[in-house]
């Protein structure tokens, strides 16, 4: 046991390079003629290497984990980035579309003029509540409150209120413009087609022209 310990100490010092020149030379000479000593040196060298490799293995493992984590983050960033780009492109496309629709509606929008019919025998023709709703809707539309205008005009369109100033084609026409301003092209087209299909009125030609442009 004692001899072995001394030998191992010697091997350690030889491998560490801490022997004196004389000690080193003498140990080297022994190695030349002692294959068992060579084996012992190699074994001890391999043990030391194994201890180092174990620690290096842990460092490498941590580094690999970082690489894989970074890889996952990169994939996530690419996915989120792609989504953001796609969403931006869609947004730009949609805004352009809305802008085009709104511009078109603005070109066709003309304020509704109502000329009261001459009264007969002093009878005063007063506007109904539905007429007020209609004019309110037009005010909202001019102010840019498209949704409110649509709500009011849709109410009128689906009702059978008595009206003096507003006509059915007028309601359809302004509702179609409101839809168009709001980007609801399909609904606008249906209403315009309905105007065209009705007997000739003041909105027939305008509806035909707008349909052509759409």
């Amino acid at each position: 046991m004692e001899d072995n310990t001394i030998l191992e100490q010697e091997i350690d010092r030889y491998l560490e390079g801490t022997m004196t020149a004389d000690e080193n030379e003498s140990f080297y000479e022994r190695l030349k003629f002692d294959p068992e000593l060579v084996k012992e040196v190699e074994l001890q060298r391999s043990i030391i290497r194994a201890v180092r490799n174990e620690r290096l293995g842990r460092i490498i493992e941590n580094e690999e984990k970082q690489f894989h984590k970074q890889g996952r983050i990169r994939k996530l960033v690419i996915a989120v980035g792609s989504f953001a780009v796609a969403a931006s492109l869609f947004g730009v496309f949609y805004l352009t579309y809305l802008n085009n629709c709104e511009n078109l509606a603005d070109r066709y929008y003309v304020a509704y003029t109502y000329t009261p019919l001459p009264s007969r025998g002093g009878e005063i023709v007063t506007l109904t509540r539905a007429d007020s709703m209609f004019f309110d809707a037009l005010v909202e539309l001019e102010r840019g409150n498209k949704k409110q205008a649509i709500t009011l005009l849709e109410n009128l369109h689906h009702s059978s209120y008595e009206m003096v100033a507003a006509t059915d084609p007028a309601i359809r026409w302004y509702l179609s413009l409101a839809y168009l301003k709001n980007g609801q092209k399909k609904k606008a087209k249906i209403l315009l087609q309905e105007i065209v299909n009705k007997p000739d009125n003041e909105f027939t030609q305008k509806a035909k022209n707008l349909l052509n442009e759409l």
Partner: protein
Amino acid sequence: MTDVDKILAIKKKNEFLVGRIYGLYRNEFFYFLKKSISINPDDIQEIYQDAFMVLCNKIYENKLNADNLTSSLKSYLFGVGIRIAYNVNRKNGKLPTEEIPETIDVPHDNEPGLGEENEKIIQKAVHEMGEPCHTILVKQYWEEKKAEEIAIEMNYKNPDTAKTQKYKCIQKLKNELRGKMVYQS
């Protein structure tokens, strides 16, 4: 960071910098190996890890230092890597048709060693070593602590007790290994 700085960082076992140096050439090595030799992509990571360990051990054993480094550290590492890759191919029965390109600096491996199989057995035995032996060997051979420091840190009476304990551990390990190792006649 120059090659000399890198060698010093590895020599001093600065674990943070050793990790950084490992990562520094990793992706480039993967690309280089794919380009240089027909190799199974699944093997590349292991080849790089083995090459990096060989490089570190050369530095620890003072076989590679700032004075005898003839090419860059990267070329040396890649050279070791390509030698390992050729050996992997050979072992898999996939002999490379092409020779190692002359432009690649392949370091010579002139150590007889104990053979790959035995190295694996030793690695496993060290990994499975019980306490306090495992800690003592790590403190001695990785952290390069003196017997005095080991004695204080591990509550031994004195440095001699620490030394005796260390050699007992090595002898125990060697005895275990002698029964497992394969010696060529």
